[in-house]
């Protein structure tokens, strides 16, 4: 298994992707909704709400959190504390939802797409190892999702700072836990999902079945990710590092198992006899 050979497949798939508007347009729309529109609207509401009933209610909710979580919320006024909570904790799961959704959609079609279009036959006869093909597909699905997240993260940071930065004494975002989230926690979640999705994609017979399998994998991971990232308020930095470490261990174990599961003959079309 050579990573440089896997990179050929990854580059090939990424090249194809850049030529497919069908993929690119939904990708941009999804990222825009989660990283731009929702934060813009939500933080806009908070920044304009002042001493409204909404802010009082959020303040009440914050006071019901454990003291350790309350201590981590910055801001000297209820409005600033509400803004900080929205920007740092409530919207954190978005950072995982977006790449997972994008990468899963691409990954689900990776192997089955080659089989359906016949390019799988070409790959099956090629001197590439199946693990190289597997990792190539994984990288090709990982990169768009992760790059979108990085770009979205940058835009999100701008929106947060410009919308509510004034309430918190200037630009305050990204916070340390967000850096850890983006650089340490998000990648293993994507890799774990893609490992399972590619493994399943190599076993099903059609693209719709691959999409179903992908949904089955992605939804629980999103729910799990939502849970753990929402809980970051309890212990932001150490929590994020810990979550990331566990996620990496699970992801690498899953990869070790799933990368061996791709059989060359599964790359061939279904009408494999003649």
């Amino acid at each position, binding site marked *: 298994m050579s990573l440089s050979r896997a990179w*050929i497949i990854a580059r*090939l798939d990424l090249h194809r992707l850049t030529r497919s508007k069908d993929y690119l347009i939904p990708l941009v729309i999804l990222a825009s909704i989660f990283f731009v529109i929702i934060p813009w609207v939500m933080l806009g509401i908070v920044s304009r709400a002042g001493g409204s009933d909404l802010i009082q209610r959020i303040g009440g909710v914050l006071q019901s959190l454990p003291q350790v979580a309350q201590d981590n919320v910055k801001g000297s006024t209820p409005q600033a504390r509400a803004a900080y909570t929205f920007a740092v904790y409530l919207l954190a799961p978005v950072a995982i939802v977006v790449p997972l959704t994008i990468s899963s959609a691409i990954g689900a079609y990776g192997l089955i797409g080659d089989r359906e279009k016949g390019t799988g036959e070409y790959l099956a006869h090629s001197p590439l190892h199946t693990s190289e093909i597997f990792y190539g597909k994984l990288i090709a699905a990982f990169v768009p999702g992760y790059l979108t997240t990085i770009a979205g993260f940058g835009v999100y940071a701008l929106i947060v700072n410009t919308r509510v930065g004034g309430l918190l004494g200037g630009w305050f975002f990204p916070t340390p836990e967000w850096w850890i989230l983006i650089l340490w926690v998000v990648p293993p979640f994507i890799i774990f999902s893609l490992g399972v999705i590619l493994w399943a994609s190599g076993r099903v017979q059609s693209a719709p079945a691959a999409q179903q399998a992908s949904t089955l994998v992605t939804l629980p991971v999103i729910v799990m990710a939502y849970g753990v990232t929402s809980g970051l308020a309890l212990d932001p930095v150490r929590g994020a590092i810990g979550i990331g470490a566990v996620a990496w261990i699970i992801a690498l174990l899953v990869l070790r198992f799933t990368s061996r599961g791709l059989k060359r003959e599964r790359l061939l079309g279904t009408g494999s006899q003649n």
Partner: protein
Amino acid sequence: MGSDWHQLGLDSRDSATDRYSMIEPAIKFDDVSKSFGDTLAVDALTLTIPRGSVTVFLGPNGAGKTTTVRLTTGALVPDTGEITVLGLSSIADGHEVRKICGVVPPKPAFFDQLSGIDNLKYAAEIAKAPRRAIAPAAERFGITDALHRRVDGYSTGMRTRLALARAVLHDPEILLLDEPTAGLDPESSRAVLGLIREMAGKGQTIVMCTHLLHEAEGIADVVVLMGSGQARAVGNPHDLMASYASEKCVAIDAVDRSMLAILANMPGVLTVNGDGPVKVTVEDMGIVPDLVKTLVEKGVDITRVEPHTPTLEYLYFEMQSALGDQL
């Protein structure tokens, strides 16, 4: 199986393959079987393909030709048996085997969003071929002008030409062509057959699956007649025809064809067949001048007398009728 081979005028399957195993084998199938569910696609196939030969697999759809190609490169794993390619196991050494094989599948597929040149560049990287091999390969198959267009705009013929260019980029020792001329225009077909001759001339081994018999004519060193996943007959076309289509025939035509019926009662004539020019089977070709003389004397206005040379197509259909549903 043995009786089939006697029927075909060959001593046995083993004698035919043994003859070729004297030459250094390029590909050896040793009792190879492969099934898909309940369907046995390849059934105890034992076959030796000589190095540097052009071997043509003939057979109807479902005969096991494509599966045999896929087994050769290790893309499929046999249920039983062993395949060696230039001494390498297609399973244990599959990676090495695939490096020395070039494959053109029956419906060549490409990364359609990309241009022809991009497809070839990635193929060159995957096959570890130098990029400088791309231009000559494209030139050879007449697709240079289309290289910068997206492949999804290519015609069937152009796709096949691109597949051929892709398959020869790394100058493979063995070229496996599965129905390479299906859907091609005559010019492209000629290019394919030209490639086969050229590669064979350089000592490379070509395996071609087809059911277009006229294509196999003249280029095949070895013909493998496939049926129900087995090699029903193996041999060079001349030997097979001499063995099987050994009957002595002459085609005769006349202005009034009904008068040719009298041939049936002439001495030395075994059979008379056909509605148009009749195919006359005789005991000895030496009696043909006497037959002609007799016909002329009886007032038959003869327009054609031609010794019947069996073609591969003729051989195929004769074998097919002899072997019946085994093909």
